[in-house]
């Protein structure tokens, strides 16, 4: 991280006073502005707990006007700000800085409007992902993106991270399900991007704000699309002798025109860990397990399940079970959904990676991952969003054994380099954050990264919002804006430049 700025630390008392003037009110645990050392400790990390740093202070506004005033003041005083939703980021996107205000959106809890006829919901950013579905399910609707942390993660955080979920192959990521946001820029200006209808005029600024990891602005309101809940869902659990056959089965399902609602793969270590944890009857003598879920009218589900069972059998399936009722379908998922805690039981610590690869390279990637596992002396269990090629290798280590955290991180970096080498990416859904920041040059050239940073400069030219995340090198905006001048003449002299 950048070194804390001494001048900022020196004026901490003045910053606290300014924040208290903007967000008054007492209440529990220091009220809306948290400054005591003990009270700051719960805020020192997000879900990437390997990184910890207590913030300089926490401020918890309740209105857009307050957010605007906070940012405006911090901008004028050159104070950095780290926005935070529910703190469930797996990439350290909300990791505090010692010299920054941590801006928590947890008090933005209201569902402002549901319009079933136009199929939208307008919500505040602190509303949890699941709460949106709960607010609309009475009329048969739901909010489709379903990250595994959906009970806790906020929609504002989902927008920042462009969160996915097991159903995103069919229903898309957050970006495909958001229609508009109210956004406060670092200088306090409030803008509305998008709104209540499709395809607004002008540049798709909303599209670049979604997934910008809190670097471009602070979201204070979100308009999402809601979808009619499918009539029913069914799942089939298929065991294969090895992952290669499971992979060819996945490819054939898609080649035959089927986009399942979810298609998850687990390797042998993950199957064993999950079964030991939840005992749902996963076959233990297989090399790979596939859960394929389809949703829609019963007639469609029946047809697709029979097709998938046929394709599985053509690809050498060793075992196959179709869910006969809702309880059995949930049991199939119970093991997959418990995979992370299950691995947590067999290993004191684990590191969850998140690369995406072209699916056809899966056998090769798994083979080389085994070699890396031997090289680094650490185990790995794989769960895999098989439909879209998003791998979640879980690297097993013990933080209490000196050197193992470093080895796990080196192993993780090697896996992500491998993902890029075969044509994939560093992160499919968890974000770059602090975790994968220094690997960005593996995937992007200097020119690519500078172009992205120039977009950052258009939103936040002083680089005050969530600095130290995503980009490995912080270039000053003036330096990025520099351009060649030919014969002493600047073309278009009346254009504004930064």
């Amino acid at each position, binding site marked *: 991280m950048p070194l804390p700025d001494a001048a900022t630390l020196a004026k901490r008392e003045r910053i606290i006073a300014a924040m208290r003037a903007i967000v008054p009110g007492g209440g529990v645990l220091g009220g809306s502005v948290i400054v005591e050392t003990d009270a700051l400790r719960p805020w020192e990390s997000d879900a990437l707990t390997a990184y910890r740093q207590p913030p300089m202070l926490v401020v918890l506004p309740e209105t857009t006007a307050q957010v605007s005033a906070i940012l405006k003041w911090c901008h004028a005083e050159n104070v950095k700000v780290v926005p935070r939703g529910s703190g469930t980021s797996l990439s350290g996107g909300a990791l505090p800085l010692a010299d920054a205000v941590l801006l928590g959106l947890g008090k933005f809890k209201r569902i402002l409007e549901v319009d079933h006829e136009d199929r939208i919901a307008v919500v505040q950013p602190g509303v949890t992902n699941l709460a949106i579905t709960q607010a609309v399910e009475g009329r048969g609707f739901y909010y489709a993106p379903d990250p595994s942390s959906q009970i806790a993660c906020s929609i504002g955080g989902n927008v920042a991270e462009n969160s996915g979920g097991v159903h995103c192959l069919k229903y898309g990521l957050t970006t495909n399900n958001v229609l508009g946001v109210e956004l406060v820029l670092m200088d306090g200006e409030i803008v509305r991007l998008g709104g209540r209808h499709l395809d607004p005029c002008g540049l798709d600024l909303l599209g670049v704000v979604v997934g910008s990891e809190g670097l471009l602005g602070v979201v204070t309101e979100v308009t999402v699309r809601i979808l009619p809940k499918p009539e029913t869902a069914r799942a089939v659990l298929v065991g294969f002798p090895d992952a290669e056959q499971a992979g060819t089965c996945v490819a054939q399902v898609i080649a035959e025109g089927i986009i399942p609602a979810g298609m998850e793969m687990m390797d042998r270590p993950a199957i064993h860990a999950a079964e030991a944890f939840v005992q749902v009857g996963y076959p233990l003598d297989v090399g790979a397990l596939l859960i394929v879920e389809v949703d829609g009218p019963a007639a469609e589900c029946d*047809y697709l399940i029979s097709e998938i069972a046929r394709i599985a059998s053509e690809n050498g399936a060793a075992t196959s079970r179709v869910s006969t009722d809702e309880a059995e379908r949930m049991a199939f998922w119970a093991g997959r959904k418990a995979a992370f805690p299950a691995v947590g039981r067999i290993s004191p610590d684990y590191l969850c990676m998140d690369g995406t690869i072209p699916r056809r390279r899966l056998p090769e990637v798994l083979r080389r991952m085994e070699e890396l596992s031997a090289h680094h002396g650490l185990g790995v269990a794989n769960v895999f969003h098989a439909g879209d090629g998003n791998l979640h290798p879980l690297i097993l280590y013990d933080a209490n054994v000196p050197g193992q955290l470093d080895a796990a991180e080196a192993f993780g970096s090697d896996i992500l380099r491998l993902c890029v080498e075969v044509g994939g990416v560093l992160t499919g859904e968890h974000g770059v954050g602090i975790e994968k920041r220094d690997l960005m040059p593996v995937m992007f050239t200097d020119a690519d990264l500078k172009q992205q940073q120039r977009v950052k400069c258009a939103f936040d030219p002083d680089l005050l919002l969530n600095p130290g995340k995503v980009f490995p090198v912080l270039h000053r905006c003036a330096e990025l804006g520099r351009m060649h001048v030919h014969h002493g003449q600047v073309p278009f002299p009346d254009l504004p430049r930064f």
Partner: protein
Amino acid sequence: MLDPRDAQDLAQIITDAGARGTPLELRGGGTKADFGAPREAEVVSLTALTGVVDYDPAELVLTVRPGTPLADVQALVAAEGQMLAFEPYGAPGATIGGAIAAAVAGSRRVTAGSARDHLLGFTAISGRGESFVAGAKVVKNVTGYDLPKLMAGSWGRLGAMTELTLKVLPAPRCTVTLMAEGLMAEAAHALMAAALGSNADVSAAAHLAHGITLLRVAGFAPSVEYRCNALPKLMTAHGTFSRLDGAEAAPLWHEAMTGNALHGAIRWRVHLPPRRAPELVARFGTQWAMDWGGGQVWIALDDTGTALREAAAALGGEAVLMQAPPEMRTRVPAFQPRAPGVMALEARVRRAFDPLGVFATARFAEDAHADQLPA
């Protein structure tokens, strides 16, 4: 007209234009050349940058060069039983790069997303003459800013794409259109809202002013059969339906998604909250067509005023001037102006890609400050 043979050539042209202070207009097939204000700019044709770079149907990913004809791309994926799910359309000669740059999306857009939702990655030459890559060639990726979203619908104002990667999806094996007749706009909108809000998985819904309402049901045959039987039962309050096969339905859908059959010299395309569509059409004659369940309305008029744009804004929508004589296009910006703060932010983002204004041709006059040619 400049006609670069390859990406290197193109980079040189852009660098030179920056040095000379000559604005460039990027062009694919030129089928949308009459969109926006008349302008004087040197045209760069991208039609020599053609061909498929990579296509692996099972990966659902296609990488092509921008000058490839749209029809060729659609034929290529159709041969593998796949489609561009946002249903882009264009006049003969339209290119894939042009369809993406103009964010063209057909009737399926309401459920399947637009060009923005299917552009996974690209390589482009910025206004600095630099080649850069954004996004990726896999379907699931959140690494770095989602610049493909910005590029889709940017009308060649950020950079010149040299390669683009699209998400492709299986084409439905079977498609049936259910048609209701004789409904007024209000009732038709209610029907479309009920159908799109039902779990019968309707993939498109449109209504034509001559009283024809269309619902598209697509998928595997057993499911389509089931849903075509179920829908009319869910919709008994909305009248009766007849079934159209693909050939019967195609011209009607084309009419709804393009507005091409409407009579009038001035053609507007309005995007608005669907529930407001009946109010809008009630005020502007008979030459209109609703798509996207009412979320997109085409209106043709002979009046060269801007009352329609004001009415659209009052209903929470935005009107785009799609076709008009040069005089009107000089006077009325193609896109509805946004709030000043948003316009300023857009201008800063454009400058982030194009600091010298190489791609600023005065075609989009709503933002005069950033797009005016130098005096």
